[in-house]
């Protein structure tokens, strides 16, 4: 594996809702095996960028390449093939309420040639990774928010994708559940070399898991910095980035 192999390339991306521009001229790439965090103030377009990366939204302008294949210009079948090659953990978990946790994972395996026994094994394995073994027959309404997130992660990992997207995985979780989720993310990176793109606000998570952080600025409507969080905290020329990453220190100074 070439560690510097670019798994995602974003070129001159402009995102808009109708005539309202959200972000423009975004240019960045994500290396294989990297944990890449998308950061910015509330409402700046982080989740919108993620939805562009996974092909749910069409950009106003620009190009998004996943493993050198354009998800923007791909036809329906090509897009489906690209989408099957990655997993997504949505903010709410997005589990299907009428299906059990096991059935939720089986939905992803529907397209595969696996036998029923093999599919059951995959379900068991994935639920074990996220510490939900024994909850196979539970419905999403019968488990907690943190468990839903973990079940969503198990579903996202069902096909062993080497690329995972997370939309605010720690939102609504207590600090222990959030830390456990971070451990799972690091485990995936270290043991399987999974590339992960994460939208989050949690500074603790960012410092413990991020390889690279992309900052989006709501005012200038473009990216304002990109780099390792520690480096940016110390050396960023952008005031917003430094303030964001030093939030605790600034509060202490003010007090």
């Amino acid at each position: 594996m070439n560690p510097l192999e670019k798994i995602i390339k974003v070129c001159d991306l402009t995102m808009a809702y109708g005539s309202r521009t959200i972000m423009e001229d975004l240019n960045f790439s994500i290396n294989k095996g990297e944990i890449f965090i998308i950061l910015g103030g509330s409402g700046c377009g982080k989740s919108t960028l993620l939805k562009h990366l996974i092909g749910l939204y069409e950009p106003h302008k620009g190009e998004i390449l996943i493993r050198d294949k354009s998800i923007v210009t791909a036809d329906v079948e090509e897009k489906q093939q690209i989408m099957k090659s990655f997993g997504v953990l949505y903010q709410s978990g997005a589990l299907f309420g009428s299906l059990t946790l096991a059935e939720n994972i089986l939905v992803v395996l529907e397209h595969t040639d696996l036998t029923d026994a093999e599919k059951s094994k995959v379900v068991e394995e994935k639920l074990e990774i996220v510490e939900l073994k024994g909850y196979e027959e539970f419905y999403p309404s019968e488990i907690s928010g943190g468990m839903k997130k973990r079940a969503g992660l198990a579903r996202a990992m069902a096909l062993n994708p080497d690329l995972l997207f997370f939309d605010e995985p720690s939102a609504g979780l207590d600090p222990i559940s959030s830390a456990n989720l971070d451990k799972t993310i690091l485990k995936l990176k270290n043991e399987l070399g999974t590339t992960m793109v994460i939208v989050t606000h949690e500074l603790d998570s960012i410092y413990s898991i991020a390889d690279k952080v992309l900052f989006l600025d709501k005012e200038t409507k473009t990216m304002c910095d990109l780099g390792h969080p520690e480096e940016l905290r110390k050396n960023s020329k952008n005031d917003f980035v430094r303030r964001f990453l030093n939030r605790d220190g600034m509060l202490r100074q003010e007090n």
Partner: protein
Amino acid sequence: MSSRFSEIVIDAGNKAYNFLDFLKQLTIFAGECVFSLLRAVKNPKSVKWMDIFYYMDMCGREAVPIVSLICFLMGLILGFQAAIQLHQFGTDIYVADLVGLSIVKELGPLMVGIICCGRAGSAFAAEIGTMKVNEEIDALYTMGHEPFRFLAFPKVVAMVLVMPLLTIIGDIAGVLGGYVVGVFKLGLPTAAYINQSVNAIYFTDILEGLFKSLVFAINISFVGCLQGLQSKNDAQGVGRAATTAVVNGILFLIIADTIITVLLNS
């Protein structure tokens, strides 16, 4: 004054555009349905049969009591109204003809259609709309599933299978309503009423009603699912989608009924 006028014109234009766009989406939906049907015939294993049975139960079995009651009362009302008029001419027996034909050809399928539109159409829109709010539709899409095949196809198939059966139940209940008036109010002999009904209703009349129910089933499930998929990502949006599914569903149902009636009877 002129700004008020231009607002009205703009509003009317927007509504007309939205309606045409809705028709366009319905056409695309119909194409996807045919495509899914062909694929289901080619590969029956890809069909989610359990989902179809679930929706058949929800839209079919659970609707039997309300369909029976409403159609029975409809037959009863028709019988009463007819009895008053026909009794003046001494032609009481023709109550059987009037009730039987009206129910089988028109009111049976129409009443069943309206009941199903209120029950199933709104339920489909609310279910899919809520899934949209919960990002479940996005999840389906990124898993490589087509939302139509996964969500709408089982509902369309279930409705197509249960609506004709519900219509037959509604027809029987409606004719029974007329029978109660004929026999217990007008004092007609049971055998005479049944005989008159059987002679009045041809097999083609029953087929016409069943054909209408098939068209209504497709119409209700299409409109319900489409409104759900087009709903906004909030609670109000889901509520609005459910309401619009019922209103548009009934509107298209009456339009379809008019077209079929004119074509089959001219």
